[in-house]
C-alpha cells in the first residue's frame, strides 16, 4: 500500500511533501429518517482511496485523470482544505494538520494553492493591491504600509503585471491576467510549494501558454515544488517531471514523465494516451475506446478499470491489484495491474 517511488534527480535530499496512503470518503447517505423508513444503509463515495506519493524540492509532479477520479480531492487534502479519513500528509517533515502554534501556521503558509477559476477565487470588491497584500499582513511578512506596497509591486512585476495594477479591481482584468493575480497572491507568503488545481483549464490556449511559461520561470527562479492537477495530457507532458494517473480514487500508474508517455504500462494509461486528439493527423488507427468512468458510488469490485479493460480476467474482477514498484534509470515507477504483474501484457510503445 505504501509504495513510495522516490523523487527524480530534479530534486534533492528530503521530499518537500509526502502523501501517505491518504483517503477521503464522503458520506452521501439519505437523511436519517429516510434510511430508517426505507431500510437503506449509509452510502459512501470513496473519492480518494489510498493514494501515496512524494514530491522533491523543485520538482513538478502531475496528477491526471478524468472527471471524478479524485485528483482535485487529493489537491484539497494536500493544502489542508479536506482532512484525510485515513493516512496523512507530511509537509517539510511534519504532519500538515498537526499543531496550532505560530511555527506550525507559518509552515503551512509555505504551501499555497492556485485554483482553476480565476473569476471565482478573487474577491470582486477588493483592489488587487489588497488581495495580494492580505497574505503579507496575515503572516506579518512586510510590516508597515510602505513595505507592503513595495512587496506588492515586486510581486506584480514578478508575474508580468504592472505595479500600477494594484489600484484596480479584478473585473478590470482578463482571465489570464486574473490567474496571474492569483499566482502573485500565492507567492506573497514566499511558499516552497504550489498546488495548482487545473490552473489553465479555463484559459484560451495562447493565454495558457503564457501562464505555463510563467509557472516554469517562477519554479526555476524560486525553486518551487509544484503539484499540478490537470485533465489535459498535453499540458502535463509539457510541465511535469513525474506523472501519476488516477482512476476512481486510486493512482493506477506513476512514472517519470518521459517513461509514462513513451512506454505506458497500465491499460487505462494506454487508453488515455490513445484518446488524445492528435495534431499530427497521422491517421493512426485508434484502439477503440469504450465505456465511461463508472460511478464512484458503486465502483466495480477488484480492479476498478476491469469493465473497460480489454485484458481483464477473473482475478481482475475480484482482487484489487497490488502496487508494483519497478526501478529504472530515471527513477522508480509504479503500476497497479494484474495483467502487467502476470506479464499478460508487455510494454507497448505509445501511439503518440
Amino acid at each position, binding site marked *: 500500500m505504501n509504495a513510495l517511488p522516490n523523487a527524480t534527480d530534479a530534486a534533492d535530499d528530503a521530499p518537500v511533501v509526502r502523501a501517505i496512503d491518504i483517503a477521503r470518503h464522503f458520506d452521501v447517505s439519505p437523511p436519517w429518517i429516510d434510511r430508517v423508513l426505507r431500510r437503506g444503509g449509509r452510502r459512501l463515495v470513496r473519492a480518494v482511496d489510498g493514494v501515496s506519493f512524494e514530491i522533491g524540492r523543485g520538482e513538478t509532479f502531475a496528477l491526471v485523470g478524468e472527471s471524478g477520479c479524485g485528483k482535485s480531492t487529493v489537491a484539497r487534502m494536500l493544502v489542508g482544505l479536506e482532512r484525510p479519513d485515513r493516512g496523512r500528509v507530511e509537509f517539510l517533515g511534519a504532519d500538515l494538520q498537526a499543531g496550532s502554534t505560530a511555527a506550525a501556521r507559518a509552515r503551512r503558509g509555505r504551501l499555497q494553492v492556485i485554483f482553476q477559476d480565476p473569476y471565482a477565487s478573487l474577491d470582486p470588491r477588493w483592489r488587487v493591491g489588497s488581495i495580494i497584500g492580505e497574505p503579507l499582513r496575515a503572516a506579518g511578512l512586510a510590516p508597515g504600509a510602505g513595505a507592503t506596497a513595495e512587496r506588492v509591486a515586486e510581486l506584480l512585476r514578478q508575474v508580468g503585471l504592472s505595479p500600477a495594477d494594484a489600484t484596480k479591481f479584478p473585473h478590470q482584468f482578463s482571465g489570464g491576467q486574473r490567474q496571474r493575480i492569483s499566482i502573485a497572491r500565492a507567492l506573497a507568503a514566499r511558499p516552497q510549494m504550489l498546488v495548482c488545481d487545473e490552473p489553465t483549464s479555463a484559459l484560451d490556449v*495562447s493565454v495558457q501558454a503564457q501562464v505555463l511559461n510563467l509557472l516554469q520561470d517562477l519554479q526555476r527562479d524560486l525553486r518551487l515544488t509544484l503539484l499540478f492537477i490537470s485533465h489535459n495530457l498535453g499540458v502535463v507532458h509539457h510541465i511535469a517531471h513525474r506523472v501519476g494517473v488516477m482512476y476512481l480514487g486510486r493512482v493506477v500508474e506513476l512514472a517519470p514523465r518521459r517513461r509514462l508517455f513513451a512506454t505506458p504500462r497500465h491499460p487505462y494509461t494506454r487508453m488515455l494516451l490513445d484518446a488524445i486528439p492528435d495534431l499530427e*493527423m497521422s491517421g493512426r488507427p485508434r484502439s477503440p475506446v*469504450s465505456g465511461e468512468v463508472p460511478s464512484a458510488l458503486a465502483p466495480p469490485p477488484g480492479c476498478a478499470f476491469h469493465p473497460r479493460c480489454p485484458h481483464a480476467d477473473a482475478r481482475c474482477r475480484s482482487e484489487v491489484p497490488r502496487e508494483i514498484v519497478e526501478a529504472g534509470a530515471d527513477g522508480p515507477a509504479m503500476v497497479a495491474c494484474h495483467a502487467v504483474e502476470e506479464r499478460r501484457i508487455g510494454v507497448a510503445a505509445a501511439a503518440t
Partner: protein
Amino acid sequence: MNPPLLQVNRLRVEFATRGGPLLALDDVSLSIDAGEILGVVGESGAGKSLTGAAVIGLIEPPGRIRGGEILLDGRRIDDLPPQEMRRLRGRRIGAIFQDPLTSLNPLYTVGRQLVETIRTHLPLGAAAARQRALDLLAATGIPSPSERYDHYPHQFSGGMRQRIVIALALAAEPSLLIADEPTTALDVSIQAQVIDLLRRLCREHGTAVMLVTHDMGVIAETADRIAVMYAGRIIEIGPAADVIHRPRHPYTVGLMGSIPRFDDGVARLAQIDGAMPRLDAIPTGCAFHPRCTRAVDRCRDERPELDGPGRDGNHAVACWVAS
C-alpha cells in the same frame, strides 16, 4: 461544379450598445460543401460561435445582422421570416451545443423528445417515428436503445447525453450540422468517441458540418478545412493539414506554437503577448498588429483581405507580411 451547400458572404453582425454599435463579425465569408467538415477555430471573443449562431438564425438582440448574406443550397436564408426559419432549423440545419443539458428537456423522456422532433419535421406515423428514434439511438451508440428510450435525461451520463443531442440534431436528416464546442464539456475518452461518431455520420450521410471549437486537437482529427478567426474576422482559411503544419498568418503560427505537444525538446511554449482586443477597441488596419512581432507600417493603416478563396485546395491568408 455544384454550388457549396452553405455559403456565407461578407457577413456583418453588430451589437447595439449605449456607446454605439459594436462590430462583432466583420465581412466574414466562408462556404461548406456537402459531406465536408469545416473547423472554425479561435479564442474567446473571436466570433466563432456568433458565426454559427448567425447561420442557424439564433442571433439574439441586441445583436443583429447588418450586412452580407447566408445561402443554403443557393437560397438566401438570413432574411427568412422567423416562422420559416424555425421550420428550416431542425429540418435542414441541425445544431449541437456544448452543454447537452441545455438542449434536453428534463421533464420528458428522451424517446418522447426524439419522436416529437421527428414528427415535427418528417411525415411519419407514431410507430414509424418510434422506430426511427430507436434507430437513431442505436446509430449514435446508446447501448440497449429500447430500454433507454423511456429514460429521462438525468439518467444518462454526460457523454451519453451528448449522443442523444446528436441523435436529436440528426433526427430529420439535416444537410448541415452546426456543432458548437460539442466535446468541450466531455472527458478525453468520451470526447474521442463523440469525434468518431461525428466523423462517421458525416461520411455516411453526406452531412456538411461546421465544427466550432477552440481545441486544435479536435479540429486536426476531424476537419477537412480550417478557418481561423481573430477579432471578428477570418484571418486564415485552407486545407486542415496546411493550416496546422504550414500556418501563414503570424497569429496562427503563434497559436500553433502555444499548444503543448507530445514531442520532447520544447522547453518553452511559444507565447503571444497581450490579449484579444475588446470589441470597442479593435485596432486599425490589421487587428492583430499590436501583438504581432512582424508588423510593419502598412499593418497599422490598411486592413488586409484574404488573398484567395480558401477552398478547393487554396490556402488563403489575410496578412500583408505573409502574402
